[in-house]
């Protein structure tokens, strides 16, 4: 027999709010893309794609094997034996690194030296703290810090989706970008989740990069130029000579050299060297003796540099090129790759 409560419950969902109109349009676009694959790819074309993909994987394996044998490069693509269906979602810890985190298709994967592994958590952005003690992630409209074993450390209501996060090398501060109602805002917060403050109310959706001394970080302003913010003096300065369309910034893991990427190319300034990446082409425009350039093609161009006594690599992959620089010990923690791209972990020994 239906009670009064049950009769009330039968209509209770009508009291729920309406979804935002833009949310529906985005969801429809996603759903239609999911519909496209089986509907539009004829069987013969699917077979051709599969054969091409298999050939590419064989070539990739041969390239990685020969490089590893030469002792120059260690490449990890996860656990191919176990995860043949979704290799891009599984990470293998690079040799010498404390941890690695990656966000692929909105899902976070974390692996640390301590053996902790998180996989598949839906996030909007993520970054590991130094020594991989914590991972900061955008979940819903919050910035959340958790231990790599999943234990919750703190959460902070960000007032919008967190779209980019960078943890300072000393662990004391986090710079992050929030997409609020008024646009993209750059904020900083202490590593314990307190002292949140606004740095710039109009920025681009680019992950900030901290300088090795943790006293400054680079980001991209609304005008598209690279800006360095000094957290000690609370002053910002546009990087001299910066392009007006910077899409990425990356400080070197040692010293104070800054690399920026612009448009479809990445430009690195490292100890006086300038290298330009255009698609699969790598052009060295100014090369002092201390720089060694390796025009490798392994799911995307890879540059390796020796500078200030340390070796590090810049990886550019997929349709959304990114610079990822780091030594074996300070491997850049997060690769945010476009949909369908591989997660690549590269260490130059």
């Amino acid at each position, binding site marked *: 027999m239906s009670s009064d409560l049950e009769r009330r419950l039968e209509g209770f969902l009508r009291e729920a*709010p309406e979804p935002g109109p833009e949310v529906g349009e985005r969801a429809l676009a996603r759903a*239609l893309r999911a519909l496209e694959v089986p509907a539009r790819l004829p069987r013969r074309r699917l077979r051709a794609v599969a054969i091409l993909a298999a050939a590419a994987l064989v070539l990739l394996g041969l390239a990685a094997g020969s490089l590893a044998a030469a002792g120059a490069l260690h490449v990890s693509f996860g656990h191919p034996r176990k995860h043949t269906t979704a290799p891009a979602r599984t990470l293998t810890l690079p040799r010498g690194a404390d941890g690695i985190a990656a966000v692929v298709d909105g899902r976070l994967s974390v692996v640390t030296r301590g053996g902790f592994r998180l996989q598949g958590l839906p996030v909007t952005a993520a970054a590991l703290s130094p020594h991989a003690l914590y991972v900061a992630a955008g979940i819903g409209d919050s910035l959340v810090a958790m231990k790599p074993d999943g234990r919750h450390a703190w959460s902070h209501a960000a007032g919008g989706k967190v779209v980019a996060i960078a943890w300072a090398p000393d662990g004391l501060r986090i710079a992050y970008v929030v997409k609020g109602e008024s646009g993209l805002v750059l904020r900083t917060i202490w590593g314990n989740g307190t002292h949140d403050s606004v740095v710039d109310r109009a920025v681009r959706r680019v992950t900030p990069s901290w300088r090795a001394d943790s006293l400054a970080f680079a980001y991209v302003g609304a005008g598209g130029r690279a800006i360095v913010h000094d957290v000690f003096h609370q002053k910002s300065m546009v990087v001299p000579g910066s392009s007006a369309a910077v899409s990425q910034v990356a400080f070197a893991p040692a010293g104070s050299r800054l690399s920026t990427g612009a448009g479809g190319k990445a430009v690195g300034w490292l100890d006086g060297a300038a290298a330009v990446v255009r698609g699969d082409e790598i052009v060295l425009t100014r090369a002092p003796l201390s720089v060694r350039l390796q025009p490798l093609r392994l799911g995307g161009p890879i540059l390796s540099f020796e500078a200030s006594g340390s070796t590090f690599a810049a990886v550019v992959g997929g349709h959304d090129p990114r610079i990822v620089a780091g030594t074996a010990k300070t491997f850049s923690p997060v690769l945010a790759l476009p949909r369908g791209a591989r997660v690549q972990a590269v260490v130059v020994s």
Partner: protein
Amino acid sequence: MRGAARGDPDAAAALFRRHWHDAWRAAYALTRRRALADDVAADAFERAFAALGRFDDRRPFAPWLHRIVANRALDLLRAERRLAYEEPLEPADLRPDHGSGDRGLLGAVADLTVERRVVVVLRYGVGMTPKEIAAALDLPVGTVNSRLARALEELREALEVEHVE
């Protein structure tokens, strides 16, 4: 439905528009947060459309879609709970103090445990039978019925307290 399954984007868009609001509201009632509801409902449609070619078009689409919504929401909520050790990562948008009457009812449902909330939303919000819920959540029918009974008991108590206050 058949047009959508054949890959006709207009038919698929019409199917989406017919079910989007209900799916989103169910996701919202389950997750209690707009941002999560956005993700859950969008994920559910993406998965449903990806599998549309294999779907038996003699069966109704809505229960199948809501089954995906419910399981997706449960996956996300369980992942959060595992990470947060039962601490909510962020406050719910939905609370009983949003008002009285059915607004209060919506809030009271939001305060149920996720296991009880999901059966209430599927039973009364979506209109599934206990047998359908059991199949959707891979639970025995008896478990669904007992969760429903306990949820109703809890809701009655919560609403009585609200009425007295």
